[in-house]
């Protein structure tokens, strides 16, 4: 008989199995030619991970909101009864299975497995496959670890690890300078966020260590749960300024990982990696970790109203800001990447407005339809060998499954009923709308989010029509497209199913227990229905505009001197953010560094060399005292004697008399 807690105790397998796969594939991959250079090993481990992950999630649903925590001490200092840590200090790692981590487990393991399977077909012709599968396995391990973290420190640890996996995978085609540069950029920009996050951990830590109950945080690291209760927000009640700062720092970390304004620049460039990587890491899982962090923080740590406003502002603005940049882009993957930023903005907005669970709901559905969009795009790229939308066209006929998948993904993203995206986005907008009465300051950000609905529908269908509609491809040199093998279409179909159905899952009470909080399952009153109507209308309008401009193989070209020209240029230059960051990094920091190097060489070392020369010159002069004449030496001798006598007879008595000694 299976105990409900039985598999929870084995949750540590979730990070461990892919880690094992990492070691096996990394070491033996080059020898496993028949197994797709270890690809099938990774898929096998991925499958096992998915089975365990989903199993645990189902058990969690059935246990209705229980927490299971397993802790292992990482390292500790015993207390000495004094100082800042009188009870000592121990840092733990652990696996915490709670409702939201179970939800994340479904996303990570399912999408992870499907992407691994898809990679067998997609990556088949690439070199360096052992590296690819090893790194992807490591990523899965780290992501599972992150999801299961039971304290902030462990969270940070895996947070960095997924970051470095992302770095490697973005730079997978490292011979391309652009890929190498994009990888570095992604690491550095998220690193800025990581630093803020780390400082946020410190702030929480110190505040709790001084205000929390004895033996609390200081003794146990940084746990999310104390018993089965979210606890910290209450414990930190009296420190609102500090809490605000900590919340903003956490927001900084999340903004780095989830590519929120102003740390959004890296995500579009991260599309230099393989499309599978974009689907898994830069759409479904890792970038969502920032939202997950915010959700966790809002539940266990608590945000002050000022924090909430900042989060809402960042989220709402980012969703609109990123969507505008997607309007004009010609690269199929980058369009989807901007939409990812935009959708993550939605989630952040929801968490900030106080609906963490609604944010996670959207995260859940978004993971599936965005992974689907990326994999469909990957299928297209695999078939035609280009990412330029303006070279494609007419692919709907030759690639029916892919076209269908992209359409499902696009409809879901646009929020057309009854696809997954509709339910979560609608719930999200309705929830935020509900807060406007008490927080009128959220209005502009709500309106931005609403406008984004229109933009989203427009740009994703622009991409859809450009790629799939029309008679034939615009660039005749492209190869004839055809559908790939089942390893690629299988995951597409599976994800299509999820992108259609996942939105309805919270209406099942057992599943809804994974999202315990306001707004789940969605409630449909009069105002919500009206709002749904508005957003559906906006989405339909967007699709219609896209069809009228780009449908049936048309290519819209604006009048040469219209006002759209400069706007288009501004959008294509991404509002000059990347240029500004490059300037800061290259001219600013590097220039400073060169200046410092100059100071080092010519001033610090120059001083030393100057001293050396000064002493050298002095000794050159002094050596002439050594005349070689014996009588001179005798004179020195006598002078010494005289000095001693003078000291004994005159100076010493004088010193004694004045009390100097």
């Amino acid at each position, binding site marked *: 008989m299976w105990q409900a807690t039985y598999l929870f105790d084995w949750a540590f397998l979730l990070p461990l199995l892919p880690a094992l796969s990492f070691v096996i594939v990394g070491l033996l991959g080059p020898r496993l030619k028949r197994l797709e250079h270890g690809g099938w090993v990774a898929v096998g481990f991925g499958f096992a991970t998915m089975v365990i992950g989903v199993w645990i999630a189902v058990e969690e649903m059935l246990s209705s909101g229980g927490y299971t925590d397993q802790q292992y*001490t*990482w*390292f*500790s*200092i*015993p207390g*000495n009864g*004094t*100082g*800042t*840590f009188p009870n000592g*200090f121990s*840092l733990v790692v652990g696996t915490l299975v709670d409702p939201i981590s179970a939800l994340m487990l479904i996303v990570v393991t399912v999408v992870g497995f499907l992407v691994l399977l898809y990679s067998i077909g997609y990556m088949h012709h690439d070199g360096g496959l052992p590296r690819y599968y090893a790194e992807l396995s490591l990523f899965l391990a780290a992501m599972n670890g992150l999801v299961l973290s039971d304290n902030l*420190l462990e969270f*940070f*640890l*895996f947070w*960095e*690890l997924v970051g*470095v996996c992302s*770095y490697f995978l973005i*730079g997978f085609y*490292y*011979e*391309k*300078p652009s*890929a*190498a*540069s994009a*990888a*570095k950029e992604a*690491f*550095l920009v998220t*690193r*800025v966020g990581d*630093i803020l996050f*780390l*400082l946020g951990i*410190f*702030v929480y*830590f*110190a505040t709790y260590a001084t205000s929390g109950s004895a033996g609390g945080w200081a003794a146990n690291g940084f746990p999310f749960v104390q018993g089965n209760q979210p606890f910290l927000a209450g414990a930190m009640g009296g420190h609102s300024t500090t809490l605000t700062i900590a919340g903003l720092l956490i927001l900084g970390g999340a903004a780095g990982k989830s590519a929120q304004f102003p740390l959004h620049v890296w995500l579009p460039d991260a599309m230099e990696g393989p499309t599978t990587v974009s689907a898994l890491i830069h759409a479904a899982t890792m970038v969502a970790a920032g939202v997950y962090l915010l959700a966790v923080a809002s539940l266990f740590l608590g945000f002050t109203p000022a924090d909430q406003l900042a989060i809402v502002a960042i989220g709402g603005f980012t969703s609109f800001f990123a969507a505008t940049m997607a309007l004009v882009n010609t690269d199929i993957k980058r369009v989807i990447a901007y939409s990812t930023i935009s959708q993550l903005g939605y989630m952040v907005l929801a968490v900030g407005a106080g609906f963490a669970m609604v944010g996670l709901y959207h995260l859940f559905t978004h993971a599936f339809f965005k992974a689907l969009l990326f994999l469909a795009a990957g299928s297209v790229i695999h078939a035609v060998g280009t990412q330029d939308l303006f070279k494609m066209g007419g692919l709907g006929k030759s690639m029916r499954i892919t076209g269908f998948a992209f359409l499902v993904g696009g409809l879901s993203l646009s929020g057309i009923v009854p696809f997954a995206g509709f339910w979560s986005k609608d719930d999200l907008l309705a929830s935020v709308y509900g807060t406007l009465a008490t927080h009128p300051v959220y209005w502009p950000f709500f309106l931005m989010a609403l406008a984004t609905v229109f933009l989203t529908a427009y740009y994703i269908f622009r991409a859809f029509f450009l790629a799939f509609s029309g008679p034939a491809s615009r660039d005749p040199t492209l190869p004839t497209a055809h559908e790939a093998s089942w390893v690629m279409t299988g995951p597409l179909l599976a994800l299509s199913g999820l992108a259609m159905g996942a939105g309805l899952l919270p209406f099942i009470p057992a599943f809804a227990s994974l999202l315990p909080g306001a707004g789940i399952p969605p409630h449909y009153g009069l105002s919500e229905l009206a709002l749904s109507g508005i957003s559906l209308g906006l989405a339909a309008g967007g699709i219609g505009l896209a069809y009228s401009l780009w449908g049936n193989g048309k290519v819209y070209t604006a009048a040469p001197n219209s006002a759209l020209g400069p706007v288009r240029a501004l959008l294509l230059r991404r509002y000059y953010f990347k240029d500004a960051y490059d300037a800061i*990094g290259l001219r600013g*920091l*590097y220039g*400073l*560094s*060169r200046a*410092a*190097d100059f100071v*080092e060489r010519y001033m*610090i*070392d120059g001083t*030393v060399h100057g001293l050396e020369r000064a002493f050298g010159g002095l000794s050159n002069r002094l050596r002439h005292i050594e005349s070689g004449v014996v009588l001179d030496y005798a004179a020195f001798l006598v002078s010494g004697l005289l000095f001693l006598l003078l000291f004994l007879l005159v100076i010493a008595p004088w010193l004694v008399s004045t009390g100097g000694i």
Partner: protein
Amino acid sequence: MFPALSFLLLTLLVGTVLTFLSGRWARWVALGSSMLFLLEVSGLLSGFSWPGVSASGVPQYAYAESYPWISLPWLHISYTVGVDGISLPLLLLTAILQLVTVLYSFDERRQPAAYFGLVLLTCLGCAGVFLALDVLLFFLFWELVLIPMFFLIGYWGGLRRRYAALKFFVYTHVGSIVMLVALLVTAFYSHAPSFDFAGMYVPAQALGVTTQALLFAAMLFGFGIKFPIVPFHTWLPDAHVEAPTGGSVLLAGLLLKLGGYGLIRWGLELLPTGLVHDQPLLYAVAFASIIWGSVIALAQRDLKRLVAYSSINHMGIVLLAIAVDSNLGLLAAVLLMFAHGVVSALLFMVSGSMHHTFGSRDIATVHGITPRTPVLSTMMMVGALASLGLPALISFPAEFSALLATWDRLGYWVLVPLLLLVVTAAFYLWMMQRVLFGPTEGVPETARDLPWPEALAMSMLVALTVLYGILPGLLTNVIIHSPVYGLP
């Protein structure tokens, strides 16, 4: 009780002498001696139990031995050795680095007997510094380290080796003189009954605030040159760049640690009040080192120079961790010294291998080496990632603890080292982008991947990096057995 530490030093000495004498078999003798050393230290670790602080408040040491050496009515110098949780990990580091250095340089052709002998002598000196608990004995070993390193740089070094060797010698010697004076003044001024640590412990702590502050500042200068602290650091890049790879490894891995160890053992433990009084100075120096090392590293083209400057940055964090004067900070300081010893050794080996594989360490001319030399590239990647503080690698727990301790004392000032972590990441990532990735350029046709001794040596360091990164408890459980943690 068996005199384990004296036996250790004796076997080291015998090994060194035999290496000097054994001509073309020197490398095997050196290897055997290094393995024996590591074995002995492992034995010490497994049998380590710290006797704690005595009833009279004087710290005691494991494996302690004490014999009078010079005994005059006014001067008691003894041969006193012993270990606690601070010195034992560093002793382990010495043993590890000696072994990997010998392994790495296994194919040294120029005067191998002298080379390996000097390497062993350097390690003997370092081991002695970590073991010695008497001022004069400490100073003896401290100076002993200087001489073989001088010759290693001066004979086996690069083009500007004479300049570098002399600069190294003059700088560190000035430092040791000031250090010696400070130690002697501490001993005499406090009327300590003897020169050994236990004898000085209580009287030195009873010194007045001003005296302690002045003495601690002097020790900061003396030990700080070894650290090195800005602005007395310029010997380090030159010495590292010109030294042979084995010399760089020992220099970064061990010699810098001597400064940190000395400052904890003889500075912080003897003059705690002085440290507290000098904290503003310490913070200033530490921040300066952190900022300067990191910012300048960004402009370097020579990989060795880059790693050298990043060492200044890391040792600045060590100094900061010592300066905050909390049990967490000291734990972090020792852990970080160990971590930096392993990681910088790895990075200097990578630089050395890069030099003799491609004939250049210039990161502006050698590009895209990964397809040609995958093993070297992997090592470089692990080294760089470990150095920029990636979790699951050895530096992370150390840096995390150090920064947490800093936050605990200094609040938002911790932003300084935190933000510089970004710069550290920047120069390593930039270096990797240029050297490892992109199209292959500047790689001679004859370039081959690592020979086995170098690959083996680096693999050992990588394994350690991962092992202690995942299980830092292996080290921290040893480190906490020291009086500075105020344990019962």
